């Protein structure tokens, strides 16, 4: 389970994330959606221990990501924003490297690798060096190395970005499988159809804040729109209006003063 409360993160004079709170439960797929620059990646980076928040708390299975990074790292499998491979290592060696860093015993590790190669249907590239891998092949390797230690919490940053239909489907199947095993999945996306098809709960982000949260049905009720794409556009428009208003008022205050 992932519990986020009041996260705030700034870079120099830019506020990337402000007062972000939500919960991603076990046995559910939680979608983090929003336009580019909404703060999804920064939020995830705080959750997967690569960034420290200025304030607020991110708990993974009750462990604070900022204070006990190693405890958290043991419990998470992450497909980060950067998912580069080592051109001179084979797919299998990539997965083995991460598995060993997680301290898996050799027998268990090899079995886990074989299983992942089968479920992600990557037999054709398993023993090929990664140089020249397609986007889909690269993603499968990155996904396999993130999942080799069977983490209870899985975070995926834009997993299907730029993928062909087949690879996207492989990712979606994988996500459902993990959910059905009672594990917790949190993934970010700006593709509505994908979120609609996969998510039990949705957290909508805009300008570094959570602007709406709920099941797809709840969100539809809130905005009076049935189509998720419409919901998203409506929320984004509302958000933009609010922002404009706030800026206008701030300006007015300045002028008055």
């Amino acid at each position, binding site marked *: 389970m992932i519990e986020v409360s009041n996260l705030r993160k700034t870079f120099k004079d830019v506020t990337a994330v402000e007062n972000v709170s939500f919960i991603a439960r076990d046995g559910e797929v939680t979608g983090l959606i929003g336009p580019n620059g909404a703060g999804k990646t920064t939020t995830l980076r705080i959750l997967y*221990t*690569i960034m420290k928040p200025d304030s607020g708390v991110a708990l993974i299975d009750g462990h604070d990501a900022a204070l006990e990074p190693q405890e958290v*790292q043991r419990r998470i499998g992450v497909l980060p924003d*950067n*998912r*580069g491979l080592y051109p001179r290592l084979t797919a299998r060696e990539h997965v083995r490297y*991460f598995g060993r*860093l997680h301290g898996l015993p050799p027998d268990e590790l090899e079995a886990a690798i074989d299983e992942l190669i089968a479920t992600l249907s990557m037999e054709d590239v398993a023993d090929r*060096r990664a140089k020249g891998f397609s986007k889909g092949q690269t993603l499968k390797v990155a996904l396999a190395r*993130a999942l080799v230690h069977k983490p209870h919490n899985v975070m995926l940053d834009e997993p299907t970005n730029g993928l062909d239909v087949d690879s996207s489907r492989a990712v979606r199947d994988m996500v459902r499988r993990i959910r059905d095993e009672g594990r917790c999945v949190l993934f970010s996306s700006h593709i509505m159809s994908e979120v609609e098809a996969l998510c039990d709960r949705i957290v909508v982000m805009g300008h570094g804040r959570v602007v709406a949260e709920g099941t797809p049905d709840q969100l539809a009720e809130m905005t009076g729109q049935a189509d998720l794409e419409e919901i998203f556009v409506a929320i984004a428009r509302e958000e933009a209006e609010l922002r404009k208003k706030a800026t206008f008022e701030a300006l007015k205050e300045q002028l008055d003063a």
Partner: protein
Amino acid sequence: MLEKLGFGKIRIVAAKELRDNLRDRRSTILSMIYPLIGPVVLGALVLFVGATLSAPKVAEHVVVVQGAQQAPDFVAFVREQGADVVETDIEDVARAVRQGIHPAVLIFPENYAQAYAAEENVEIQLIIDSSRLSSIMSIGRTVELVNRFNREIAKTRLAVHGLGPDVASPMTLKSVNVAASLSISGIFLNMMAPFLIFNVFIGGVYLAIDTTAGERERGSLEPLLINPLPRWQLMLGKYIASLAFTALAVLAAVVAYKVIFTALGLLGVGLKVNPSVGDFVLIFLVTVPIQMLAVAVQMIVATVTKSFKETQTYLGLLPLLPSVPGMIMVFVPLQPTTLSMLVPTYGQTILIGQIVRGEGAPLSDLLLSGGATLAITIGLLFLAARFYNREQVAFAH
């Protein structure tokens, strides 16, 4: 116990980096060829420059003259000494010398024979080009022959007047050469230390850049950092891999020096000293602390710089820095002091010089220099670990 301290995971990281880099055939082969450049250049210098600068035997010396028919006595004297005299067929002797056709030309003027017969002093010219290093020995030989001829004739003329030969020559100068080598090539021995230290700073540098700045730029550092191990362990694993490659490169250089020195000895060229295998083992051990220091500096630079290219620029300049004291010492040998032992690379330059010249390095200096460099290295490693903990380390800017 070691596993608990994190050595298991450090080993996993180091092993991965070594295997990864060994598969990069071109870089690996290049990194083993670079260390051979120093020994080969040194060998060539000793062989060619050393040979030209070594004195030719009197018997092989040829005095080139213009107007030899004016001075039959001189010609006879030179041939008696075992050298030869040749009349030049080139009119413009100045150009002939400048172009290196003759190392020097001795000109006997028109009035020489007359003045000689009248026992009067007469000026003869020796045309030389002082910018031609290779002519030095030949010029010296010719001057010596002229001086000897002068003394011979003076002796005969004084005898006619009933005077002893020592009247006109109150002093005899004899210089005694105590250099470790037979010829000027000994100066090249002093180049070995700066060359080796250059190797130390270049040997594993590619790996240090590739495993940090390179890994960041390829976007594989972010996922790697999410694995459950403290970042200092990750940094240390990469450090050990780079250090292993540095050590291998320096070892290749040291072995090549031994081979070249032995070959030069077999060819009978110039060097009086040939350091033993034990000396070379000691030289390698002296470089180990600087290897550790060099890789630590490289890790820091690769961590704080913004891109692979920027890192390459800085680390390309880095090897020049520690070579500076060594290069100065090639021409201006400095006396070792306790203080100089405390300075990384400077102390080692002195020590390597002492070992290779066969003077032996004092144990106290070896320990002092190694200890000081190691202490600084440990400090640098702590710094490198701190830089690795920074948030920015994962992201290309």
